[in-house]
C-alpha cells in the first residue's frame, strides 16, 4: 500500500522500523560507496584513534533513514531534499547481531504540489544518532 498526499496531515506518524548493521553490512557499504576508511572495518585501527571500536559510516546510517522514507513513499525517487546532522556514533560489535538502528518519522508540513516535509529520528543503543534530520518527499 502506497501512502498518498491526500492521506497525510501534519502530525501523521510514519510507523517506526528497525534496521540492522553488521560488520558484513559495513564491508559491503565500504565496497559499494568506495569509502574504505579503516574505522569502518578494522577494530585495531579504530581503537588506535580513540574510538570504542568499528563504527558505521555516517552515510550508512543516513542511508537507513533514507530507506525508511523511500519505503514509506514507495519510490526511491520521491525524496527531493534530505539532510541530517550526525549526532552520535553507531558502534558495530563483532558478532552476528551487529547494531540496531531504529528510525521513526513524522509528517510536519504539507508544502503543496504533493510535497510533504518529514522529520526523522534515528537512534542506536539508546542514543540519537541523527538529529535535525528532515526530508522533503513527493507523494502520489
Amino acid at each position, binding site marked *: 500500500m502506497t501512502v498518498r498526499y491526500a492521506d497525510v496531515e501534519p502530525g501523521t506518524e510514519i510507523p517506526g522500523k528497525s*534496521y540492522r548493521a553488521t560488520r558484513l*553490512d559495513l564491508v*559491503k*557499504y565500504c*565496497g*559499494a*560507496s*568506495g*569509502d574504505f576508511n579503516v574505522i569502518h572495518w578494522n577494530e585495531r585501527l579504530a581503537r588506535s*584513534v580513540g574510538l570504542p571500536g568499528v563504527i558505521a559510516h*555516517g*552515510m*550508512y546510517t*543516513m*542511508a*537507513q533513514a*533514507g*530507506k525508511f522514507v*523511500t*519505503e514509506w513513499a*514507495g*519510490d*526511491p*525517487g520521491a*525524496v*527531493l*531534499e*534530505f*539532510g*541530517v*546532522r*550526525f549526532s552520535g556514533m553507531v558502534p558495530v560489535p563483532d558478532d552476528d547481531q551487529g547494531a540496531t538502528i531504529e528510525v521513526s518519522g513524522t509528517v510536519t508540513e504539507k508544502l503543496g504540489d504533493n510535497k510533504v516535509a518529514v522529520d526523522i529520528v534515528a537512534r542506536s543503543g539508546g542514543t540519537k544518532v541523527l538529529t*535535525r534530520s528532515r526530508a522533503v518527499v513527493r507523494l502520489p
Partner: protein
Amino acid sequence: MALNKEFVGRVFGPGEPYEVSRVKIAEFADAIGEPSELCRDEAAAQRAGYPDVIAPPTLAIVIAMASTASMHSEPGLGLDYSMVVHGEESFSHSRPLHAGDVVVATTTVESIRAVGSMSMLVTSTDLSTTDGEHVCTAKSTLVERGK
C-alpha cells in the same frame, strides 16, 4: 592544525565524467538494504515514469566524495583526514540519478571555521550531467577533531 581559510570560495572541478551504471545502482541498493524494484528492474522503473533504474537518494555521495577527496588531499588545506568525522550532510535533488546518466561534480568550499579545538569545513558539490542539467547538490560539513 587549523585549516587554511584561504580555501574558502575555491572551486574544484568539474572532475572526470562519472557514468552511473545499473550495476552500481543495484550494488548500492543491496549494500544499504533498499528493496525497491525501481533500483533493479528497468521495466518497473519505466512504468513509474523514469528512463531507467534509479539510484537511492544518498548514492549521490559516492560521486560527490570522489570530487571532495581531491580537494581534501590538497596539501595547502591542512586537513588531517584521520581526525575527520562527518558532521552534517544534505542532498537537494532536481531529479533522481538514473542508469545512463553521465555526471560531473564541482565542489565549492563554502566555509571554514574553528570551534574550540575543532575545525568545521563546509563544502557544496553540484552534480550535473555533461549536458549541463543539474541533478543534485550535496552539502557536507566535516569536523576535524582537535588533538
